[in-house]
């Protein structure tokens, strides 16, 4: 008895991954996700279909995938279980910053049809070492349940992209796992696992045209996001408005001890940090008395995450070095917002718009968040005929400021019922022009 068990243990240790019980269970927890989503870009509603992967995390059918697979634009989510049965699902929440989204299987349907599925367990991504064997499982190019093998190529890759997830920002608050396990389109959202089938990452992206440079969100980041999304449907982060930069070898210039401080490269105008008196070129030494080391780019996301993790509206005490002087600055955090505002299409005008967000207004030096940004017009429709084009910011409609998306939607609804000329004020590169939308 004892011998068998030992043998069993020994066998498990030396067995290839495909034969370990954990790995087999993992395979049964990986799903294919077919997404139908709506896009507003061209002045019309257009539907498109795409395929991604996901992994079931719990017995009650929570599925983790990428934010760039399942976003609020999804109108239909269909999950193929390892039994090849298809089940519907709904979006619980998404977080483009970490490129993660959480789905809920239609439990009633699962019960009614008596379907079975397994669920996977997370591993500890902090314990991964470079060279460790990992497997990516997913649906590359629609090839369901494909497993590829590789190693951890780098366990702390810095990779920030201001429009990496369908135009949304990503990568500011986490580093990534890099692997040479083949990751192709369709792998997105599938798990990256160790030999025992533990999920240590969510495959997310690869370099186009490169060989075997794939990236995954570490499981330890994913755990926190899953918790937040299942509880609140979204992740709330704090924002103070500093753009950090690794100090690298500027320590001498700023007369700093090695491995101390973070360079404030830019301060967003009007942000909490700007209001508190922070300036570009300041060195952030400590947050709430806790030391900061931002010498290398890889060290920036955890520091950003520390700031983001503060309760919105709370006060952070920042220790700042400016020239020879060091001082304390109290910064009250705001809620972090994406640059990408809510989108809508005003179909009778052939006009797609996106609400001007605080970040968009700041980046484009607009006075405030009044207005909607034109993301597309349909040729031959009133907006196009009037001369509006992508990039314009519509600030007034029928002489009323466009404070919210609802303002312009209301005028469009009235136009649908009774088409009458509508006066639009818009600016392009800060040049204000008037347009008439005619039936």
């Amino acid at each position, binding site marked *: 008895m004892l011998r068998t068990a030992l043998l069993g243990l020994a066998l498990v240790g030396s067995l290839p991954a495909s034969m370990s019980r954990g790995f087999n269970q993992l395979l049964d927890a990986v799903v294919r996700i077919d997404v139908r989503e709506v896009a507003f870009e061209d002045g019309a509603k257009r539907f498109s279909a795409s395929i991604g992967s996901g992994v079931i995390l719990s017995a009650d059918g929570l599925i983790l995938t990428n934010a760039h697979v399942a976003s609020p634009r999804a109108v239909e989510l269909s999950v193929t279980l390892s039994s090849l049965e298809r089940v519907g699902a709904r979006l619980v929440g998404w977080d483009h910053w970490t490129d993660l989204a959480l789905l809920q299987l239609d439990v009633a349907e699962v019960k009614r049809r008596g379907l079975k599925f397994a669920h996977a367990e997370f591993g500890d991504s902090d314990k991964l070492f470079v060279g460790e064997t990992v497997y990516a499982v997913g649906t590359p190019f629609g090839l369901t349940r494909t497993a590829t093998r590789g190693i951890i190529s780098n366990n702390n890759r810095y990779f920030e992209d201001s429009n990496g997830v369908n135009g949304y920002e990503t990568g500011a608050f986490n580093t990534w796992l890099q692997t040479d396990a083949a990751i192709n389109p369709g792998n997105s959202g599938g798990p990256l696992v160790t030999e025992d089938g533990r999920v240590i990452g969510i495959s997310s992206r690869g370099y186009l045209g490169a060989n075997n440079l794939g990236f995954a969100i570490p499981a330890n980041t994913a755990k926190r996001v899953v918790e937040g999304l299942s509880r609140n449907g979204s992740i709330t982060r704090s924002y103070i408005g500093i*753009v950090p*930069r690794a100090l690298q070898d*500027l320590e001498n*210039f700023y007369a700093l001890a090695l491995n101390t401080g973070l*360079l404030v*490269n*830019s*301060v967003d*105008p009007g942000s909490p940090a700007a209001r508190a008196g922070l300036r*570009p*070129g300041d060195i952030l030494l400590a947050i709430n008395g806790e030391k900061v080391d931002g010498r290398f780019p890889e060290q920036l996301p955890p520091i950003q995450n520390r700031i983001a993790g503060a309760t919105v509206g709370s006060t952070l005490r920042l220790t700042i070095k400016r*020239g020879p002087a060091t001082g304390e600055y109290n910064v009250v955090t705001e809620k972090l917002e994406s640059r990408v505002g809510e989108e809508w299409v005003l179909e009778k005008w052939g006009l797609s718009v996106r609400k001007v967000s605080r970040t968009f207004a*700041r*980046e484009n*030096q607009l006075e405030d968040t009044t207005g909607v940004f034109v993301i597309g017009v349909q040729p031959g429709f009133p907006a196009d005929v*009037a*001369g509006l084009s992508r990039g314009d910011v519509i600030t007034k409609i029928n*002489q009323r400021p466009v404070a919210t998306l609802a303002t312009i939607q209301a005028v469009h609804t009235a136009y649908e019922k009774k088409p009458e*000329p509508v*006066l639009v*004020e818009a*600016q392009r590169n*800060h*040049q*204000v*022009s*008037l*347009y*008439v939308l*005619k039936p």
Partner: protein
Amino acid sequence: MMSRCLLLCLLLTGGAVRAAELPALWSERLKTVVAVEFYTETETERRPTIAYGTVIDHNGTIILPPVAVNPRMTPSQLKEFKVYRAGSATGVPGVYLGQDALTGWHYVRADATQRTELQPITDFAAHQQREPAMAEEVWGIGLRNKEEDFQPYLLVSRVALVQSLPQRTAIALQEVAGPGLPVFNRAGEFVGLAASSFGQSFVQFSRMDRSGTPVVLVNVEESSAFLLASDVLPYLGRVPTNFFGRPLAWLGAFGMQPVDPDVAKFLHLENQSAVVVSEVLEGSPAELAGMKARDILLAIDGAPLPRMKPDRVVVAYVEREVERRQPGATMALTVLRGDARLELKTVLGEEPRLMGEAERKYFDRIGLTIREFVYGDAVALRVRKSAASGVIAHFVKPNGPAGGAGLHTDDWIKEIDGVEVKTFAAAAQKLAEIEADLGRAEFVLLVSRGGETAVLRVKLR
């Protein structure tokens, strides 16, 4: 076949009879045209430019078209002006007098030794001015390039269309003169000055691209458009007394955009045009008169803005209305604000210091020219004039130390080595110190670009 030849022969003879006097007209009028060569000196290169000019008086004064000089260059960068007569291999020295703001013409004066060989265009002005008629034959002079001694050649065309842009401008059937050179009628009277040519749309096919690519071609040696004499002769006397043609009238209504006929109709503006003012500049006469951003300008001194084609021409019309006036002159503006019509009395001011007038200095070891921060920079960067400090990176040498650190042309330099540089003098001194210190390995710049800042480390070794 026979009848066709007959017709052709008749036409040819018909033309030949009238053309008999042309050689005489031609040789007389050749004295009104010149080629002007000058060098533009930048931090790293020296480039020759050749432009065509028309003689306007007996003092050897010549006007060159507005596009002859790159607007980014300052007059101090323009060197060695030389004036060549048509068909001449040798030029005489010339002096650059400056640019007139209203017409945009650059004025050059030829050396006294050549003046007797030049004849002003005014000598050929018609006694009674009239617009050339549709299909009227007009002719002008083209000049070959320098290798061919600026040899003159004849261009003949007919008037196809006359339009207000906002100056009265004729479009000929084909090229009628070198840009900047005069156009004459068959009697030899001066009828206009060739402008820069129009872009013409073509579709380009090739073996690789069989479906064709639309291209716009502009003939830079010859032009088919000319300003009518009525919009040339009255302005020839505007010889600038300084490089920038000061005094320059200033209103400060910025980013004017025309309203199209649909919008005009919506606003109940009949048979007239209007412009939307995007911004009212800080401290400007427009601001002092109470103008607000988004006001719609309807009339100047009671005269409604005329409806012009294309719509955007009305903007040039308003700008010319300001430029033709002097600082201190009053200008009554009628604006529409919401539903209210308001009368604003403005007193035009003097244009703030221009970018061309700004001080600048090149630091060779750093690979950077800094330029004084002027009013126009505050406007372009969308900052308050009071926030204006620092200097602008006017030129960044490619692959030089500053360029290697990531500095771009037009970046706004706010700090040098951690010290805020409030003025041009302070920045120039700081950079001079850094440059003189041969032991220096690096220094740090804080720059702003598109509202964001960055710390740049410039390595000198």
